[in-house]
């Protein structure tokens, strides 16, 4: 059993954290005034939630996009449930207890983590017990389905607000009648009366909010862009917490003034603006501080977030407040992009934004708990590709810190920033000095020595526990192969999972860039590189100049990697080369799941022990189909273009390569030394002096 916390403990900690951050910001002369205001607002909001009980207030918990204006107009204290779990993740870090409590309730891990955490938080009393539980189907099945369980846990009455799918007149009429029903419900439960004048006033302020948001968007078009990297999350939070309230207007006015001043002075949010980004969906909330620093370090800034900050430029009618509340739902950008049909009009609008805000690239935060936004990734990527804006997709979780490490996120973003920088690669005409590239993988370490455009020596050794010693040994061996016995002062660029932080390396490049450079050096015709390593697989797109144009990798799961193949070979009591050649002779193929390495293992065992046993050749082919299927799926996410080069240790497996060709319906190239292509790329980067920190 999970221990029960003191009632409302999570909110208490939130208040303390906001107070502390606010105090620190006030002491910091460089702090933004809008930020100081932001923390004051959060503190105010959560103090009120916390004091609700003792002060005899009526507390209503509600899901995201619930029309909170109605609650304010009735003097009911709102508690935004999803934002509370987000903010708790941002300020308090660890969410493990609330997520564990959610799991104990029987909520499947595929359910959106803020919602799982939410039910868990109520279960262990981490949030104050609300007087009523309110929820709606805006924005997804999770919001639609979360309320009944929460109401039951709290043993409180609940109200579900049914938001229709599209915005026809009749649907708005239905929604207005739902709102009337909500008001009746709340009046009955709270004993508070609806103050219609107050509601009208909030509509007037909502109009002002929309106006300010539009002006803020305009200011962000400036070069350099004045708003800090992930500031949009603050814009969102303020509207989620204080919609149509004086606090929201005050905050937006502060932001507006700050940005206007900056634009006038030609000041940008980052020291040297290099990358203007479009942000799609929301990054991991527990990494906001880290991401702000990382963006600052790389001169990156988010200038537009079509899913969140771009409101329909329309105004609401204060004399018809309830209708206006209903219509507001159709003005918010989330409604356009996440709920309701995703039309070509919305996609075109996104492309227009990319142009207007002069973005160089887009980052899609693929939050695995959000199914309906992830289903639009390809639509957005294809739309942006048409106007030559590359998009990177980063798998993540919004609140669960165990899903991604900061290093993973850094790697993914840096690779993308390298791609956006497009270094000029003239791999065939380098400076004539002896340089080395070293690729430290999870299984092997590879080194390549080149002089100008000539490869002098390569080496492949088993990776050591100590990456530094391993890299040195690999370089030494490559030098020996090159016939160089002395110990020259080499310029070294490193890559690979262990390639960071080598004391003697001049720089580090991500594997994607190195693969693109190495592949281009070997074959100018290559446009796609598939790298299958020990613990990960990467697909890289290269243009005719050898520039990296897109990449995707898969490292969360062993299925589809070299280690997976090794494990399967062991189960069959064979060596990898044996499995490889046997697979080429297969008549049929055993059904083996490509989805999970653990399940695949039990499937292989059952094929081996079946009576009569499945022919070994068929099992071998089945294993290769599982891996090839997985790889093909990864390739299809970035789109495959000829020529295709397969590299990495697994490229030596002819059986697998044959099946991969079949799955992709394309002939692939395999270089003479497929394992050293990334190291070669690193050496070329060293030669060009492009390997930088």
């Amino acid at each position, binding site marked *: 059993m999970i221990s029960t916390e003191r009632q409302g403990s999570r909110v208490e900690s939130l208040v303390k954290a906001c107070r502390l951050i606010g105090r620190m910001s006030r002491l910091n002369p460089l702090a933004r005034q809008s930020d100081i205001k932001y923390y004051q607002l959060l503190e105010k909001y959560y103090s009120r939630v916390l004091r609700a009980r003792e002060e005899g207030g009526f507390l209503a918990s509600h899901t995201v996009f619930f029309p909170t204006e109605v609650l304010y107009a009735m003097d009911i204290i709102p508690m935004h449930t999803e934002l509370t779990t987000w903010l708790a993740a941002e300020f308090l870090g660890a969410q493990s207890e609330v997520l564990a409590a959610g799991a104990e309730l029987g909520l499947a891990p595929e359910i959106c983590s803020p919602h799982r955490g939410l039910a868990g938080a109520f279960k262990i009393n981490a949030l104050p017990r609300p007087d009523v539980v309110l929820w709606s189907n805006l924005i997804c099945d999770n919001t639609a389905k979360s309320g009944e369980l929460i109401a039951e846990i709290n043993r409180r009455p609940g109200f579900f607000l049914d938001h*229709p799918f*599209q915005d026809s007149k009749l649907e708005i009429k239905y929604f207005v009648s739902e709102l009337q029903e909500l008001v009746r419900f709340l009046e009955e439960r709270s004993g508070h009366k609806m103050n219609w004048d107050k509601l009208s006033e909030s509509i007037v302020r909502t109009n002002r909010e929309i106006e300010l948001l539009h002006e803020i968007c305009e200011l962000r078009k400036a070069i350099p862009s004045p708003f800090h990297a992930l500031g949009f999350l603050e814009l969102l939070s303020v509207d989620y917490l204080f919609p149509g309230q004086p606090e929201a207007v005050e905050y937006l006015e502060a932001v507006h003034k700050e940005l206007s001043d900056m634009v006038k002075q030609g000041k940008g949010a980052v020291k040297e603006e290099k990358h203007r980004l479009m942000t799609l969906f929301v990054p991991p909330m527990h990494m906001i501080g880290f991401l702000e620093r990382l963006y600052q370090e790389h001169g990156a800034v988010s200038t537009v977030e079509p899913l969140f900050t771009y409101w329909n430029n329309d105004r609401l009618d204060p004399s018809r407040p309830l209708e206006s509340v209903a219509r507001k739902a159709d003005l918010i950008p989330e409604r356009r992009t996440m709920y309701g049909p995703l039309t070509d009009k919305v996609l075109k609008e996104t492309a227009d934004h990319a142009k207007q805000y002069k973005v160089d690239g887009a980052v899609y935060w693929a939050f695995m708990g959000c199914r309906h936004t992830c289903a639009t990734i390809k639509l957005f990527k294809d739309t942006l590709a048409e106007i030559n804006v590359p998009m990177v997709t980063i798998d993540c979780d919004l609140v669960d810190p165990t899903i991604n490490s900061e290093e993973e996120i850094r790697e993914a973003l840096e690779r993308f920033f390298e791609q956006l920088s497009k270094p000029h690669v003239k791999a065939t005409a380098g400076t004539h000095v002896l340089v080395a590239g070293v690729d430290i993988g999870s299984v092997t370490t590879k080194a390549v020595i080149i002089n100008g455009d000539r490869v002098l020596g390569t080496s492949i050794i088993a990776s050591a526990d100590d990456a530094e010693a391993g890299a040195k040994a690999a370089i030494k061996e490559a030098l020996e192969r090159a016939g160089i016995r002395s110990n020259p002062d080499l310029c070294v660029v490193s890559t690979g999972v262990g390639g960071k932080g080598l004391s003697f390396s001049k720089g580090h490049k991500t594997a994607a860039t190195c693969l693109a450079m190495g592949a281009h050096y070997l074959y100018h015709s290559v446009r796609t590189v598939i790298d299958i390593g020990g613990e990960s697989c990467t697909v890289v797109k290269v243009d005719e100049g050898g520039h990296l144009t897109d990449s995707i990798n898969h490292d969360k799961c062993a299925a589809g990697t070299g280690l997976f193949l090794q494990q399967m070979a062991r189960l069959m009591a064979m060596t990898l080369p044996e499995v490889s050649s046997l697979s080429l002779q297969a008549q049929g193929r055993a059904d083996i799941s490509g989805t999970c390495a653990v399940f695949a293992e039990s499937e292989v065992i059952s094929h081996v022990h079946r009576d009569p046993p499945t022919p070994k050749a068929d099992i071998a082919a089945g294993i290769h189909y599982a891996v090839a299927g997985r790889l093909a799926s990864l390739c299809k996410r970035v789109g495959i273009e000829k020529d295709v080069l397969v590299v990495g240790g697994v490229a030596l497996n002819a059986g697998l390569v044959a099946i991969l060709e079949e799955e992709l319906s394309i002939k692939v190239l395999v270089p003479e030394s497929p394992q050293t292509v990334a190291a070669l790329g690193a050496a070329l980067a060293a030669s060009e002096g492009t390997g930088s920190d």
Partner: protein
Amino acid sequence: MATTNIAQDKVELQALERFREINRAFPKTEEVLKYKSRGNKVFGWLCTYVPEEVLHAAGILPVRITGYNQETELNDGNAYMYINNCSFTRSCLQMGLKGEYSYLDGIVGGSTCDGVRRLFDLWRHYIGTPFDHVITVPRKMTERAQELYYQQVLEFKQHLEQHLGVRISDEQLLHSIEVFNESRRLLARLYEMRKLDNPPVSGAETLEILDSSFRMSKERFNEELRRLLDELDASGRKLKGKWRLMVAGSVMNNPEFIKSIEELGALVVTDELCTSTRYWSDPVVLDGSRTPLEAISRRYLSNFPCARMFPSEERFNRILGLARDFRVDGVISQIIRYCVPYAHDLPLLSERLKARDIPLLSLDVEYATSGSGQIRTRVQAFLEMIEAKKS
């Protein structure tokens, strides 16, 4: 544990073979192709909130869009829909992308769940059909929701009329209601037989019948089903099962899954699936107070609800009713990974079953899973547990 294989006690049903033929050939069945070659239109629909009678009345052959019959690598599905959408929607999309449904003249969906509405968006963008329409389906079943849904059905009918250049008359709708209600009556008769101590038909066979029901014309289905019911009456077939089970949860089209449960000696006697009970259970009621279209729309919104509907209690009560009427010893809930509406309901449903002392086994599955390996082991353990409880 002694596993009585029910297959040993049963004579193969001849009429069943016709249903199987349809399922094997789907989506490109002979009947569909014949329909097309005669210049008639075939429309695909998604989810039980699309009123088929309206399509039928317009002279269209409605077929239900489903995914692959077997668990398949969903490379295209993953690439277009991402891996965190349920395997049902990814499977359907992949079949569409591969041209398996290239004959469709139109698709009709409802705003039922996130996965389905996105499947619809992607279908429209990457596959495209000459006609598409998505119906807003309220989540409530109140009078106001009925009004909105009726308007939606009416708009759908008008869109269809405009697209086809025809008028759908009340007489045609009445005729379609009669054809579909006849199916529902016949299926109710089939389910009545499953209430017997020794039902003449297995759970796996029932799903085969149901699968084919939305893959051929209703007229022909009714004819085939009548033949099968007669054969069942005449055969004196009596299936033995040690345990009577209900299968609940996400969309399912694969009889192999149920077969693997029944091979362990149990009988699946009823279900709460949108491809079975929830598809046919409520008839369109014509009592003179409503126009045919009103009667249709009312039936579809207040039918045995999907987990997407509010309040969930309505669905729970129906499940408990089925458990009682079919005298089940346990419920197997199978939820496709990322099927969020059902996943959210699971804690609430298990509480309610527990309160009535009905054992529940909940399985995380992929669409079209055959129920081998771990699933089989878990079902077996569940049956042993029921056995221990009984004695």
